[in-house]
């Protein structure tokens, strides 16, 4: 078996459904989901911030759950359904979180925004946040260096249907 360790790693065929579209990719195993999305599928909406799971800019939904795509290997998600910020709008209508971010001016430079929006969409689906404190706590994996936090919380409250 020892020769196994010295094989040159081969590309691995994987299948992803990204924003409802089927994709087959041949990837080396160390390709993160983030790099697969950006570099292999040209979906650059998902951002690479810290690349270490500390900033949340790379947040996407995998089978409906928000995760850090920078800490996920694409080969491990073979067969998964991925939703990125490009896939949130439906039939020409913005996702309620996207509309709320516009309504509340919940960004400044915008670099963290795709991650914030995907994370907020995941938060809504989880249904665990009931008030502003809980939104702040459950959004703490998304940093905004411009400091748009008050408007982000207000936008998420709007998307949750709170006054």
């Amino acid at each position, binding site marked *: 078996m020892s020769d196994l360790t010295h094989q040159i790693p081969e590309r691995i065929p994987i299948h992803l459904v990204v924003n409802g579209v089927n994709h087959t990719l041949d990837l080396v195993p160390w390709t993160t989901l983030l790099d697969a999305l950006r570099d292999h599928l040209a979906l650059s909406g998902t951002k690479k911030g810290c690349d270490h*799971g500390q900033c949340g800019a790379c947040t996407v939904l995998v089978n409906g759950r928000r995760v850090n795509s920078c800490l996920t*290997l694409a080969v491990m998600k073979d067969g998964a359904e991925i939703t990125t910020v490009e896939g949130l709008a439906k039939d020409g209508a913005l996702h309620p979180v996207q509309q709320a971010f516009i309504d509340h001016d919940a960004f400044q430079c915008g670099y963290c925004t795709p991650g914030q929006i995907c994370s907020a969409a995941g938060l809504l689906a989880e249904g665990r946040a009931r008030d502003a404190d809980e939104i702040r706590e*459950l959004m703490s994996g998304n940093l905004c260096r411009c400091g748009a936090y008050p408007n982000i919380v207000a936008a998420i409250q709007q998307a949750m249907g709170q006054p």
Partner: protein
Amino acid sequence: MNNFQYARATDVADAIRLLAADLGAKLIAGGTNLIDLMKENVERPSRLIDISRLPLRNVEETADGSLRIGALVPNSDLAYHPLIEQRYPLLASAILAGASAQLRNMASVGGNLMQRTRCPYFYDTATPCNKRNPGSGCSAMDGLNRNHAILGTSAACIATNPSDMSVALAALGALVHIAGPSGERTIALTDFHRLPGNTPHVDTNLGTGEIITAIELPPHGFAQNYSYLKIRDRMSYAFALVSVAAALELEGNAISGARVAVGGVAHKPWRSLEAETALRGQAATPDHFSHAADLLLQGATSRSHNGFKVELARRAIVRTLAQAANATPQSQAHKKIA
């Protein structure tokens, strides 16, 4: 990240076989810590064995009233599981005090136990570190050691274990189920992690080629009187300076059973049977909590920057025991400390 082979295990036996076939191989489940360490070149596995699809995702009650939690249950699913919320709210609270929502969605229960220290020198391959490179020295000893251990340290290492979940599991008396080349075994969570001694590169007592299959919680969950208090530099999404898991059994105002585990202060969750025994039979009052804190912190030592942790831990222990006694557990979302 170095190049590596990738294999997907078909069952637990297959994972054990694949591990035995390649000494440089590592298991991967959620990957939230391992992939980060690989990007930093701290971990350089020759092969990743993907166990994320193995059927270890059940939470089930056993005949004796214990709860058996599959090693691959995501941290968030465990924290929000109805049986955990109702019977083991201390564990739910500790899990929700750790990491971020995204990371908790990915990280597995078994992986949480296997996560490595966040000592910055362990991460920095340009500096000596006995944990990363045995025998090279400890840069934290006389370096930036504000976040380092005050209990159970050695001359070789003053790193802390970063897990919140493990602190609650230690207090609750959890067991770890393990499978390996020579069969299955079960060890107490408090015996799972090690003190650094002369071998700080060995974090746990998991043997070569072994895999965690489940965590088991004893029937008694201390659901009435508990609290998990985490003190950190920012209010969320930061590792603990000090954390405390406290669980009490009360008869009136008298303590009939006590569990206290402290995080952020040692290479493993810190418990003291002496402190817990001293609480038993006493009134649930600050002076008794303070005595227990003194016993827990016996032998504490500090370096140049982390001396504050001794007093911080003492006050946190007293405060958390009061929260538990008053049935006013610390909220992880509402930050005011009662």
